[in-house]
Structure formats: C-alpha cells, structure tokens
C-alpha cells in the first residue's frame, strides 16, 4: 500500500462486522483496520462504538492505550527499531543518533518525503543477534550503521513497501 487510500467507510464497516462474532472483538478489529489502512482513522471511532455497543470514549481510550495503533498514515516502509536493553548493549542508540545525523530521521516520525517511518519498539525477540529491527514485518538482525543506511536508502528508493 503506497498511497494512503481515502478511508472508505463502507469498507471499514464491513471489516468491523466481519469480526463481530469474536469474543472481545475490539483488538482484532483494530488490527484489521490498521492492516488495511496503515493506521486507525478517527472516523472509525463512532463505527466501533456503535458496533460494539460501547461509548466513543472507551473506543478512543483503547486505541490510544496501545502503542501499535497509529493515528495517521505511516511512510511506505515502516522500520521498527528495537531499543530495549539487549539491543542497547550492542549499540542501538548509536543507530538512533546515526538516523538523525545522516538521514534526518527522528524516532517515531515519518520522513518528509513519506518514504520511511521509524518507530521505537521494545524487544523483537532477537536479543542474541541485535541490534534488531522489523522492516515491514521482516526481521533483520546485527544491524550496523552500514546495514541501517542500506535499509533506509532502499526504503527511500522504493515506490511501495507496505503491502
């Protein structure tokens, strides 16, 4: 998904109703929306409240509680860089500094050209082969500055990353 499609309310509503039979359907629905649109648009809040018979405040509270759910469309490539202790011990914070100084990318932000979103994540379970990142859901290990630059430059040159 490259350009962030105008949210299609009917489609969102059908995604919601597809999951309504599940016990505790809220998170599966939010994931489905984010998978489809790359983020959870605020227009989904009243639809969810109506479908689940809860208040809009409860829906908003749930969306904002979880770090995963974005409130705006991400870049074409999403890089989730692990910043927890195991990756700290092998220099993930140097990568954070490198992204800023060499690529003008700051954490938890999207590049100006919309090519890359760099997000903080705490642990990807690749703690013996850090620093680690998920690049559009592909796990990459042993990231040094060179590899990191390659990932970012590759992202900047790709028309479409997210699927």
């Amino acid at each position, binding site marked *: 998904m490259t350009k962030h499609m105008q949210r299609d309310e009917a489609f969102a509503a059908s995604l919601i109703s597809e999951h309504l039979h*599940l*016990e*505790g*359907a*809220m*998170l*599966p629905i*939010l*994931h489905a929306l984010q998978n489809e649109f790359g983020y959870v648009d605020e227009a989904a809040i009243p639809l969810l409240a109506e479908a*689940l018979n809860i208040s809009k405040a*409860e829906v908003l*509270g*749930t969306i904002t*509680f*979880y*770090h*995963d*759910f974005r409130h705006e469309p991400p870049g074409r490539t999403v890089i*989730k860089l692990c910043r*927890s*202790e*195991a*990756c*700290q*011990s*092998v220099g993930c914070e140097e990568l954070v500094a490198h992204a800023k100084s060499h690529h003008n990318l700051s954490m938890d932000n999207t590049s100006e050209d919309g090519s890359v979103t760099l997000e903080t*994540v*705490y*642990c*990807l*379970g*690749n*703690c*013996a*082969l*850090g620093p*680690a990142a*998920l690049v559009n*859901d*592909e*796990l*990459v*290990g*042993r990231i040094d500055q060179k590899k990191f630059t390659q990932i970012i430059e590759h992202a900047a040159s790709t028309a479409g990353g997210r699927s």
Partner: protein
Amino acid sequence: MTSSIRIYVPADAAAVSVGANAVAAKMIQEAEHRKIAISLVRNGSRGMLWLEPLVEIETPQGRIGFGPVGVDDVASLFEAGLGQAGKHPLALGIVDELQWMKQQTRLTFARVGLIDPLSMEDYKKHGGLVGLQTALALSGADIVEQVRASGLRGRGGAGFPTGIKWKTVHDAAADQKYIVCNADEGDSGTFADRMLMEGDPFTLIEGMVIAGVAVGATKGYIYLRSEYPHAHAVLQKAIAVAQESALLGPSILGSGKAFDLEVRLGAGAYICGEETSLLESLEGKRGIVRAKPPIPALHGLFGKPTIVNNVLSLASVPWIMAHGAQSYADFGLGRSRGTLPVQIAGNVKHGGLIELAFGITLREIIEGFGVGTLSGRPVRAVQIGGPLGAYVPPEQFDTPMDYEALAGIQAMLGHGGMVVFDDTVDMAKQARFAFEFCAKESCGKCTPCRIGATRGVELMDHIIAGKDRDQNIKTMRDLTQLMTDASLCAMGGLTPMPVLSALNHYPEDFTRPAMPLAAE
C-alpha cells in the same frame, strides 16, 4: 525421492534475520542447477544463534552442521559433496555432539530445531501426543495432581506453582472455563517462547489441550505479542494442522472431549504480559491491571475461571505427562524443579538458548556457554529477568540460576533471560532507562507506578547532571521504597530492582563528572 539428501535450513525468525531465507532459496536453485535431489526442511533453531544460518545435512553418522552459512557459501557446500563436506571450512561436525548441545537437558525444547515444526508426522515420530494420550486416560484431578507433583512453577517470571493454579480452576464450578496462554514475551533478552512457538508449536497446543482436559475448559486463547509476526504465521498454520488431525476440535483424538484454540495479537503494550492486564486486553479493553483478589483462576477471562500460564509452563506439561511427574522433579535443585530454558543475549559472543536443569551458576552460563562479550571487552554487568530484573556484577556470578538463590542476592530469575553488557555501559543511564520504560509502559492505574516512574526519570536526570546529587539519590531511594511497597503489580513494584542494583553495585557511575541533561 527416498535417495534425496535431507538438508535443514532454519525458518526461525532469528535465523531469518541473518539471511536464512536467502540461503534456503539458493539451496534449491543450486540443487536444480546441478540436478541433485534434495529435500529441504525448514526447521526451528537449535539455539546456537551466533552460528545462524546453521545449515544441517543428514548423513548416516548424524546431522552435520555448517555455519554461519551465507548465500555465497552454498555453491561450495555442493562442490564439497554435501554429506561428504565434513572438511568444508564452515563444517562444525555432528550437531548433536557439539559441546553446546551435549551439555544440555532438553525436555521442553527436545524437538525444537530437530523437526519440521508443521509436520504432525514428524511430531508424532519424536514422541508428540504421548502426553495427551496419557492424560486422556486419567481423570482431571489426576492430571492436576501429576502437574503439582512435578514441581513445575510458572515460567513467565513469578514462579507460582502451576499445579496449584490448575487445581483452583479444576475445583471451580462454572459453565465455561478458559485456558489462556501468555505469549506476550516482552522482556528484553528473552526469546524462548518465540523459539518454541516457531520451532515446535504442537507442543504448546498439546499442553493447552491437556490443561483444558484437566480442568474442563473447552476454549483456549494464545495471547501473542504483535512484535512476533513470524511466530504468528507459524501458530496460525499449526492450529489449522492440529484441527485437521483432531488435536483440536469437538473430539480430541476421538475422546469425545472438545477443545479449540485461537491466537490473538497484542498491540505493543508491555504491561499486557501481566496476567490481569492481558485478560482485559483479550476482552477488548485497555490493558489496565486488575486488583487481586479475585484471582483469575476463579474470576478470569469474561469473569470465568481461567488458567493463565506462560508458553513454557504449558509446553512443559506434555513431557511431564509422558514421562511422569517424578522424572521431571528429579531434575533441579531445592524448590526449583525441572529444567529452565536460559537465554543468553546482548553483548555476548555465543548467544542463544540452552535448556538446563536448575542449579547451574551464572558464571558457567556467561563464561562457559557465552564465551564472554561480542566486543571482546570485559563483562561489567548482566541483567537477568528482563527490564524489571537486577543488574548483577561479576562478583556475584557464582550464584546458581534458580528462583531462591537469585532472590537471595536481590535479583530475580524472571523468564530466564540474561543480557550481557561490557565495560562501556553507563549504569546511571541504565537506571534512568528503567524508570523511563516504566513511565512509558505503566498502565496508569496506580499512582506509585504512574507518577513514580516519571519522578524517577526526573531524579535520574538531575543526578546525571550533577545537581544536588546526595539529596536526589536519597529521594530516589525513598521513591523506590514507595514504588516497591505500594504499586499494584510488578511493573511499578519491580522497576526499583534494576535501579537499585545499578546504584548499589555501581555507585561510581552515579558520581561521574556531570553530564548535560539527557537528550530525551
């Protein structure tokens, strides 16, 4: 195809992160090109992560390992004659006879790395389903008694006796009960759950089915963290295979007993590894911690009696049922019975997973298995048990790795993860991070955690900046006492552990020449 050569290239996420998929693709391409019949198995990881991608080739003598194999090495493996490639520069010898493997006691991880994770045939050939068949012949109470007698304690971190939890749910009367698997493995330095789910998912499923049969629950959920997309894909496929083979469904192995299972994804909240927060999240709400009592065993998911167990606790159960409680209890030390999958990670030369009986010392793990730091510098600290665990200095490395011994040095075992740091680590920064992490991940329900963590970050900023150090350190100690005593759950209650261990063992880092205020 019988004469084809069996080659194993792990599909474990860690192996994939260093190129295993490309190696597997190249293997197939090279075999086609040379017209050599191979059968490629995508196994789990053996746990020797520094050797990934670890390629194994089956020979009459056993499986020979090669690693780490890059795409460019594949052609030379074929040149050397695959099974005859014992002299190849990357050859490691027979994998089962390597020092790393030989020193272990693999019960829970017996099949991980050995089998095709999604082949029910492989699973059965390697002893799968024996535990469940044994359980199906017993009463629920007898299964619970076996688990209790094994001495198994919750592997998630708290170490609560699994059998007692099961008994409470067994004895509760309800129209619906649930088995919930806590697969929200959020602690940095831990990946055992992930490796098991990717390398041998049927073991976890079998363990959950046994739990369901034991306590009369017909529905299970695996609450998996969203940071594990590879494990998610494997579990989805494994559940489908399990349904086709009647390991799940309306009549488990034809017994007439029903049990079914769903995977649910978390959404990046560390706190959802706390069992009551996890239940709230499964119910579709914010992951706010519940006050206990009532305990989840009586009032759990949707208010029903619920077993909430860690992946490794549930995955240990099939072995216990197949081999008997006493056989399991024969491993271990004191009140820590059985085996523990230890994960050694961070700045370490040989990182990976080893399953050992309780009682091995930290030094044997760090120096024996880990062989020191990746950077080649001296080890300065090891954080054990995740972001809420203590930083342990080398003077304490002769402590045995068990629940009570670690508690004795104000540390904790947690989920068995160890993160190694070399001498470039700044322990004041690590203490600050512990507070920062707590501030970000706190559910916000109780004040000591919600406000205390933020105050802790501020205090650490002042200390690092050299402002009123003595007074601020005193205030920080006071704050940690309050958080320990008054927090609702382990998030706020244990954040003081890494902070105080850093302060007590490395006071010199808190009195260094002043640094400008930290950037964040």
